[in-house]
């Protein structure tokens, strides 16, 4: 064992020597400069990936909550179709790269807009700083998303700063369900919709797990349905969310036929969902699959008959 350690130490020295004199300190460890270069490269790569995650999520979610506006009476906010952030709102490891590559600072700056949504139609684009929204100053990107429950107006005035100059834009108001979605880093396949929370939180594990936008739409519809019905943590609440969630996704034009397979894959990857447990509120997946299959038949029948996609309600 000791001989092995000595051999490894010798190997480490040899490798260090091979890596070039400037890349390491006197102990043969990589120098701070060499580490900083690698950290920058990884952060640049990671930040691009983070933005791609948010772009995919927002691209699906804005469609779902816009098409589901009528299912969210009294719980509506305009759908803007933009993603903005301050440096502080990003994961710590990405802040330096975000300042350097995207010019982020303490003011909310647009990172991307979705084509054909109000922000893009009003001419907003990546790099714009959002100064005022509906006449009020906005300290961070979260407050941009929280503002502007739709009233009587058809448009909302937005003041932006672009290359040092202030400009005004009129954004069309398109009502949608209140709750924006945000991706956060966690390996487990999870989505959270806490009552009273302003956001749907979707884990990066879930974004990887949902193989298509159709699958993602089914997940987002389910979570939106939770927030709308307020039925959290009960079996009936979960089944309601599945049912209503399919309507949300179908109204936005997504193919909800993927729903049963999605939940089956979920139960295979995460067997905890196979049993009922106190801490686990989702219904057993097999039951879910059968109920979903029936829901899909119901939606298909309405489509074929040219009827609006309204969920059935008791009397």
């Amino acid at each position, binding site marked *: 064992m000791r001989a092995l350690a000595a051999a490894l130490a010798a190997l480490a020295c040899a490798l260090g020597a091979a890596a070039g004199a400037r890349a390491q300190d006197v102990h043969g460890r990589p120098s701070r400069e060499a580490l900083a270069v690698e950290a920058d490269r*990884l952060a640049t790569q990671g930040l691009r990936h983070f933005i791609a995650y948010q772009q995919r999520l927002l691209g699906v979610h804005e469609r779902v909550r816009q098409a589901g506006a*009528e299912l969210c009476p009294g719980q509506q906010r305009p759908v803007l179709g933009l993603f903005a952030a301050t440096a502080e709102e990003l994961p710590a490891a990405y802040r330096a790269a975000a300042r350097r590559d995207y010019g982020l600072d303490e003011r909310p700056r647009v990172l991307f807009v979705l084509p054909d949504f109000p922000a893009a139609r009003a001419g907003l684009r990546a790099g714009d700083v959002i100064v005022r929204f509906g006449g009020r100053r906005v300290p961070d990107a979260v407050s941009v998303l929280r503002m502007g429950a739709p009233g009587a107006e058809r448009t909302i005035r937005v003041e932006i700063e672009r290359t040092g100059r202030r400009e005004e834009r009129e954004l069309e108001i398109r009502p949608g369900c209140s709750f924006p979605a945000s991706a956060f880093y966690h390996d487990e396949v999870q989505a959270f919709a806490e009552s009273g929370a302003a956001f749907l939180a979707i884990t990066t594990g879930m974004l990887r797990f949902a193989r298509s936008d159709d699958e993602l739409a089914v997940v987002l519809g389910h979570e939106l349905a939770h927030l709308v019905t307020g039925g959290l943590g009960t079996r009936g609440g979960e089944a309601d969310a599945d049912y209503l969630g399919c309507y949300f996704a179908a109204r936005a034009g997504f193919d909800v036929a993927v729903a049963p397979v999605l939940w089956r894959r979920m*139960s295979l990857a995460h067997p905890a969902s*196979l*049993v009922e447990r106190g801490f686990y509120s989702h219904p057993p997946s097999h039951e879910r699959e059968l109920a979903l299959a029936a829901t899909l038949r119901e939606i298909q029948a309405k489509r074929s008959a040219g009827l609006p996609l309204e969920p059935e309600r008791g009397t």
Partner: protein
Amino acid sequence: LRALALALAFVAAAACARPLSRPAPGAAEISAAEEAVAGEALALLLERGARVLAVAYRLRTEAAELCGDDVAPILGVLAAQRQDFRWSFAELAEQVYGVGDRVRVLHVLEGSPAAEAGVQVDDEIAAVNGRAIERTDDVYREVRDAASAAPRLELERAGRRIALELPRRSACRQEARLVVSGLLTTVPHPNGVDLLVTTGMVEFAESDDELAIALAHEMAHGVLAGTTGSYLDSEAAADRLGLRLVARAGFDASVALPFWERMTLEHPWAIRFDAAWPDARELPHGRMPARVLAMRAALAELARERATH
């Protein structure tokens, strides 16, 4: 417009006040579907267990020389008892595979000592090297502890006792054991010797080469335990030794950089490289900048060695 909005809101609110009237499947239908899904999930779990066994076996046997004194005989079986399964798997494993309180062989790796000696799926392991077996852990421990002896197994097969002596094949000591979790990681087993790999990690590894890289990194930690100083040093050292294990076992070590970079996309906190970061907690598999440099150097060294031989 406001009036219209209010009217619409009123209509919709009235609609929402009424409970949803959704389809509900019957009980018999549910229970049939339950069995099918659970059976499929169990089969998938065993398939993953067999994949981990095969990759770890190749690493442990082919690269045994690099593990120094940390070697022991190896069996080449996937074995389990009821207690090893969680959730409804325990019941199902009993129904489908007959897994009860005894440790049962679920898979035998082709070409392994167990296969050569004639160990079969469904054999129950009653004793190893003369010691009675109660837990799955006992099997691995007994084989490991009698490091110089050829493993002797006493098996129950269809109601009969069979004694088999396995060819002694030297291998790195650590068993790689699968644990059901979505986390992308490998961690040391609580028994202080073996390692745990998550189902999340097994799925994330797109090839056996990638899985070998993840397993070898953790194996190297075990081999190096107590020989290096700081965590930063030990992570990079585990990468250097890990890549040697991978290359020695004939896996493709060159996928290591893309693999760990892909992992880093999912774990931004792993980019930290010094104590100045706000969160000084040590997470497993962190310190990626130092690790990337170490891996790049190790791969170059391996390539040079290959060129001179």
